């Protein structure tokens, strides 16, 4: 399973005086089982890109191939895209509507025509994946749950569709540190279990560094950088220019470098920064 995006261009409000070039000639590949982090400030085109991967938006130009299917082909059936690519929007708890958690999770699989008994097995499976207890929550109204739990139910609703590609738009937005951590752990657990491609958008550079195999940087509708977290976060000045930052631990090391302290390049994580500082301070 892989994804190839070629020459993708999208224009909002084409032909109108206020039309806007939202995506400009985007090219990239994502390979089997990769976790890809996308960064870029608000309005850089991240959400527009995600909606293309799931067929919610159609490109002006260019092609998207998921597995063996060109999903941008004129008559490609939408249902087949949705089966392959699951998209979890920002603040997805707003999409809950059913009477019980189980019924809400069943909504997606039912739409895709999954057989009834398989759906019920799947509900159990995905609730476990998002770390919720089936017996406790399945028959509850989703509106009785806490904010963090609601979000996990919403994500479970997309997971239930068995997507080979899971896309999450800012999955931790607005959560407190504890709920934030549990969503990150959940993403890793899902990845281990499903062996799927995961694409996620985040403003939290530490999460991007910890989770991603590959980082894509967007600015003004263009894909401006692609690389491993190490490669990307080694370019602080370039990131700063487009209004982005490096993870906090890396930021500390950069600030020391700015102050004239000799520090190694390529420090990203807390542990690496600790090593670097320990080695420096010990020698003094």
């Amino acid at each position, binding site marked *: 399973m892989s994804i190839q995006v070629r020459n993708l261009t999208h224009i909002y409000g084409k032909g109108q005086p206020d039309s806007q070039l939202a995506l400009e000639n985007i090219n990239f590949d994502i390979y089997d089982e990769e976790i890809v982090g996308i960064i870029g*400030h*608000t*309005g850089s085109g991240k959400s527009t890109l995600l909606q293309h991967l799931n067929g919610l938006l159609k490109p002006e130009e260019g092609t998207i191939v998921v597995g063996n299917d060109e999903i941008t082909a004129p008559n490609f059936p939408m249902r087949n895209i949705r089966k392959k690519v699951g998209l979890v929007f920002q603040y997805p708890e707003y999409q809950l509507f059913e009477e019980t958690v189980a019924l809400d999770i069943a909504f997606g699989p039912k739409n895709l025509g999954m057989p009834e008994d398989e759906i019920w097995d799947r509900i159990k499976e995905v609730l476990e994946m998002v770390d919720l207890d089936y017996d406790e929550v399945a028959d509850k109204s989703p509106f009785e749950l*806490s*904010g*963090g739990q609601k979000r996990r139910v919403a994500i479970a609703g997309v997971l239930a569709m068995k997507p080979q590609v899971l896309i999450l738009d800012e999955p931790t*937005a*607005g*959560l*407190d*540190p*504890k*709920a934030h951590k549990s969503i990150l752990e959940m993403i890793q657990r899902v990845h281990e279990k499903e062996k799927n491609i995961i694409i996620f958008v985040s*403003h939290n550079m530490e999460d991007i560094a910890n989770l991603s195999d590959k980082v894509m940087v967007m600015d003004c509708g263009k894909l401006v950088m692609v690389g491993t977290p190490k490669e990307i976060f080694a370019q602080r000045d370039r990131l700063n220019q487009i*209004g982005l*930052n490096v993870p*906090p*631990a890396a*930021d*500390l090391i950069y*600030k*020391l470098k700015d*102050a*004239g*302290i000799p520090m190694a390049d390529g420090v990203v994580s*807390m542990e690496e*920064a*600790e090593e670097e*500082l*320990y080695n*420096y*301070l*010990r020698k*003094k």
Partner: protein
Amino acid sequence: MADIIRIENLTFEYPSTEEAGSKKALENINLNIEQGTFTAIIGKNGSGKSTLAKNLNGLLLPSGGRILVKEWDTADDEHIWDIRQTAGMVFQNPDNQLISSIVEDDVAFGPENLGIEPSEIRRRVDSALEAVNMSKFSKKAPHLLSGGQKQRIAIAGVVAMRPECIIFDEPTAMLDPKGREEIMTIIKQLNKEGITAVLITHFMDEAVLADRVVIINEGSILLDGTPEYVFAQEDILKSANMDLPLAVEMSNRLRRRGIDIPKGIVTVEEMVEFICQYK
């Protein structure tokens, strides 16, 4: 300086529902906020921090104990508008607190409610928009602005009421890093100009900017003091499942490995300064 807010033995219970029964959201809180200070109140979701915030200007009323804003009791109907004018409030969701479809009319909403002269409202609106650096958006429609910009308008709307204190109830929770930074800069600026700031948040790196940090856990005050003091209490914080600010966490790690780092380093700037002069 005098205390602008005094909280005495505050207990708060939400009205009971059939299944859940009544639950104490806050229990026996005692806290005084001194005029002109910048206090951060931190806690997890459900810790009671937002309930506390809404008690401070009479949007919720105590079930037990009392709260005084200046000399007025929040339970005293007669002075409720004086209290709300003195202690303004900025909420979490930038969309759901703007009332008008034109930015400057929204900023004027508070002063209009106070019955202020039109020409004076005009002056206040202009200077409030200036204070949050949004003057050139005065005729725009709020729904066309970014989250950070909307939140700045919300702050301007409170500033135009000339409050002595502003309570910020998780103003950055729904913003991106750029928006968060803008809002934090404005809060610090307003505080410098003399407005007492109370910031409710769950971001540790915002709390380190305050003069005083209060940690709320399960409806009670867990820790209260300067950031240096509070963040040095590693064990208590960890037991309450709270994160540490980066500089504190890093100092702790290095200390464990035998590097002598003094207590009291809480911001990245302080850490850099310390390492630069380390011999």
